[in-house]
């Protein structure tokens, strides 16, 4: 039964006590969080805290051992990955996984095709016009016919996010978008995130605290699979448990 509760329309993603265990090891331990529509939520935590596992649970790459996941009030706990993607959850990967042998245009074609898979599936292939608009926004329009492996690493990361947008995702899960980027490219990445922020809901995993504090509306901190802090930037910064978890080493106040 779809819950038509008004407040649920405002909550893009909600997890209720989701738990994921691999045998004896518990990767995510009863995490409940609510991300409002249009918000940018950063999920941070030391290595092995369970951030990527949580991502995988939300987007559907992994099944929860227990707990539920909701998308705009709809229970998607048992939905497989590709169905959630069609509903409107997109994700990027930490290691660039765009198809490097294809051109940029063809990658985007793949992304835009999946919604219309019934029509013209056995038809010929062409490059779709909607992708051109997106490319311009990202400054990649010159590269539409370039093979992805010819692009710089930063441009490839941009393409990752672009694919998520091309899917018309309402919720985008960004997995360490600035990983491996230079300072200049990171600034560019921040700019891009700022442009798409607000139109869609974004959940962000990041290690780069500059990016986090620049773009995040709210921050959730994970440690050993549990939420140890959840709130706005100032609150999280000042939280002693968070500082303890990081041992103060990654923590540089701006």
């Amino acid at each position, binding site marked *: 039964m779809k819950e038509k509760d008004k407040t649920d329309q405002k909550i893009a993603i909600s997890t209720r006590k989701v738990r994921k265990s691999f045998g004896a090891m518990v990767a995510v331990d009863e995490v409940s969080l609510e991300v409002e529509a249009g918000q940018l939520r950063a999920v941070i935590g030391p290595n092995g805290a369970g951030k990527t596992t949580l991502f995988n649970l939300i987007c559907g*790459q992994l099944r929860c051992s227990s707990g539920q996941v909701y998308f705009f009030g709809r229970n998607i706990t048992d939905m497989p990955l*590709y169905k959630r*993607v069609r509903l409107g959850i997109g994700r990027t990967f930490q290691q660039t996984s765009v198809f490097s*042998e294809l051109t940029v245009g063809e990658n985007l074609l793949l992304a835009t095709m999946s919604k219309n898979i019934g029509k013209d599936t056995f038809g010929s*292939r062409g490059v779709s016009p909607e992708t051109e608009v997106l490319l311009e926004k990202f400054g990649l329009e010159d590269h539409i016919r370039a093979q992805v492996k010819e692009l710089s690493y930063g441009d490839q990361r941009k393409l990752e996010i672009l694919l998520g947008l091309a899917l018309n995702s309402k919720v985008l899960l960004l997995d360490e978008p600035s990983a491996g980027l230079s300072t200049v490219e990171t600034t560019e990445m921040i700019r891009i995130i700022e442009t798409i922020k607000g139109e869609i809901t974004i959940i962000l995993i990041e290690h780069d605290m500059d990016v986090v504090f620049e773009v995040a509306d709210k921050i959730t901190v994970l440690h050993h699979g549990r939420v140890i802090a959840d709130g706005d930037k100032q609150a999280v910064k000042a939280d002693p448990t968070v500082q303890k978890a990081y041992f103060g080493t990654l923590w540089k106040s701006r």
Partner: protein
Amino acid sequence: MSDLFPIQAKGSRAAFLVQGTKPYLFLLAALLVAPLAVPPFYASLVTKILLFAIFAMSLDILMGYTGLLSFGHVVGWGVGAYLVGILSTDGVLQNFWILMILVVLSVVCVNAILGFLALRTTGLYFAFVTLAFAEILVSVAVKWRKVTGGVDGISGVPRPWAMGETSFYYFVMAAFVVCFFLMRWFVHSKFGMLLVGIRENEARMQALGYNTWACKYIAILFTGVMAAVAGTLFCFFNGYVGPGDLGFGLSGQALLMVLVGGMGTLVGPFVGAVVLVLLSNILSAYTGHWMFILGALFILSVMVVPKGIAGYFLK
């Protein structure tokens, strides 16, 4: 343009179907003329090549394009051949078109089961499950003497419409052309692109919203039907079907054709079929150790020419 999806189509659907086929006109002409120009023995050799080519090319769609190493492809061939053998001898059913409809339906059913079970696994396990499935069917064929003729198989299968050599040759040739265009269209369409995407990075394709299981399943069903067409015609060709049409030896030969010819190029397996049928014909006359050579060729082609003959030219 890119390496993975070489075809960008323009124009109407008909144009899309025949695009890029000009070089094949020459081959078509050669095939048309063959029975008139060469002694009948060679015509029958070409028939054999064409049928194996259909079999190998459809295997390539599964292996080369979708990335599914399946030893169960031979099930389509064998089930088709056996159905035809069982039904058309003893005069039970000789109407060719009804037979073919039954064959297609049965093969789709069998492959539906095989696909469902095998796709519960991936990679090596997938190969194992398909191999086990095929061999289990072999043992059923051997044990069920009453129906399948056991180890000896079924002989005396009549040709449809009692066709003579030449008419049968043209019949097979027509079937080959139809199948070739069907397979070509399958891989060059958007769906074919999805299959290659699945081969390259299945998780990514799922993250783009594609039901990859369904795509793989469709590929298995389609290629199974192609294999069945080849197997049925082969049974008519030989007038015989036996457990070898389900087994291991046939699987290996088709696999070798794909490897030698070039995986992931539709034309490669055709080249592989030509090479292998000719080789087996020539060598069988000199030595009884064709199996040994087959095995050795297998190993050599994996080690020395992993891309296959056509692979080197096209990629």
